[in-house]
């Protein structure tokens, strides 16, 4: 909870997101990863997009849900930790005055712990390790076994 007053912003341009009907899809373009958030996670995301701190989100949820206690607060804190760890958001230097208003005005009717689903099955399409080996003309090359493997495309 030490960082509950920090303000974050979406890690653009590496990260793009869209919230539709109370669920959010997030893509980390550079890492080749993608995610989605369940309705409460999506609510938290839109609040973060709008410049809300973790403390402010917690306060809003406490007002919304009579049963919002320590366990619920912990689940929200864990979501903050996760989206920071995944580099989906980065700390903002100051509140973004031009931030988009939240796409979800109110949280879901019932509290269901926020969930971040993460998918790594597209990473194989990217060369995540830097390409440094080039020939004299500047062209990168692959070992012969890789060229053979490409026949299975």
């Amino acid at each position, binding site marked *: 909870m030490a960082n509950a007053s920090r303000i974050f912003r979406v890690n*653009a*341009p*590496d990260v*793009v997101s*869209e919230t*539709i*009907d109370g*669920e*959010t*899809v997030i*893509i980390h*373009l*550079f*890492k*080749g*990863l*993608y995610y*989605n958030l369940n309705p409460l996670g999506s609510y938290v995301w839109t609040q973060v997009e709008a410049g809300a701190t973790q403390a402010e989100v917690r306060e809003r949820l406490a007002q919304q849900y009579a049963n919002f206690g320590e366990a619920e607060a912990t*689940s929200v804190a864990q*979501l903050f930790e*996760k989206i920071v760890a995944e580099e989906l958001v980065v700390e903002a230097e100051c509140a973004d005055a031009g931030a988009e208003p939240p796409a979800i005005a109110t949280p879901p009717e019932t509290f269901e*712990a*926020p*969930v*971040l*689903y*993460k*998918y*790594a*099955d*597209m*990473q*194989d*399409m*990217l*060369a*995540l*390790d*830097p*390409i*440094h*080996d*080039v020939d*004299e*003309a*500047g*062209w*990168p*090359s*692959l*070992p012969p*076994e*890789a*060229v*053979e*493997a*490409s*026949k*299975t*495309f």
Partner: protein
Amino acid sequence: MPWLRELFAATCGLGEMARDVCSNIFGVDVMVSTTPIEPLPEVRREVTEALRYGEALERTFERAANAVGGVEVRDFAIAGCAIRLRFAGSAAIAKMTPGIAHLAITAAEAPSLTPDLTPDLTIDIWDGASTGVEVPPAPWRDDPNAYGAHGEVRGYDETRVSIAFNMFFDALSFLDRDRDYAAFYVRDVAAIPFWETAAPLRVLLHWWLSGRGLHFTHAAMVGIEAGGALLVGKGGSGKSTTALACLDSDLRYVSDDYCLLSGCLLSGAPEPRAYSLYSSAKIRPGNTHLPHLLPLAYNQEREPDEKPFVLLHEHFPEKLAPSLPVKAILVPHVTGQPDTQIAPTKATAALLALAPSTIFQLPGGDTAQFQEMAALVRAVPCYSIALGTDLAQIPRAIATLLEQVVS
């Protein structure tokens, strides 16, 4: 391409392979990567350097053409855009045109498109082996951080110039957007793989067409005249089999793997529309549902590990539709049960099936492309289709749905 990351790790001398494992986040099993990914250092290069390189490529092409007896021209109408391929000699033509042959235009069909007029995009294509003329050395050759995840050259102003090197068959793609000029060089035409013949020039077409509001999209499309269903999902999800199963029905076929989508946001089009791009249909190894297509494969004399592909315009010309409006989005999944069923699904389910497999396939995926796909799933009703083993049910189920949504 599970081997790809191992490949690059090996190329770069990295000992530890990246691995995907199942992990648990807030009680849910999810795919998690263990790969530590360091951001590439920022690179800035002067665009004038790339423009000079483009001019050098153009001069090199002319030398290559002169070396083999001149330029061969082939014109194509792709989603309403006139695209001219200029070949140095004829060596590369048979490798680079079969997949788009159904979009070829001749002087008889389009008298206005003559060699004296400027097409919307010109692509110069040559190979080093047959012409004896190679491309000039890359100006970024001494920069260890020049290449990005798709072999794209980093650091230039991409609103003007895009460059990428395909390491699988040593091909260079160059696009100057302001001049609508592109170059495609391959070291040896004999090295062009079957998948490039089936779906040629993906990178260049993706880059250039996106500037026209036409998005290169990883999706199948079938339908009736009034509208079609876009089938979205990563490889193996069943979209290709579904599209090919529809060849035996009254449904028209636009694509089974890649199509072009006119976006609502950028183009301001009144409704999203999917356009035919390639007429090639690859048959996955082990696909036992479509045995009747195998004898029609274009690459009959293929290597054992090469996928057969069928040029549909040669065998089912009446089935091909140049474009259809998108009236439904279907997220397929294979059930193993006999019956096919369609049910509404969330727009986010469709976006998850569509966006990553499209964006990560080619260099240049960005916010605008993602926003277009989000606009699409917002605008069009989304469904899941549980694919049954009785293939005849699939086109019937899709046709029934389309008749409902277009009425």
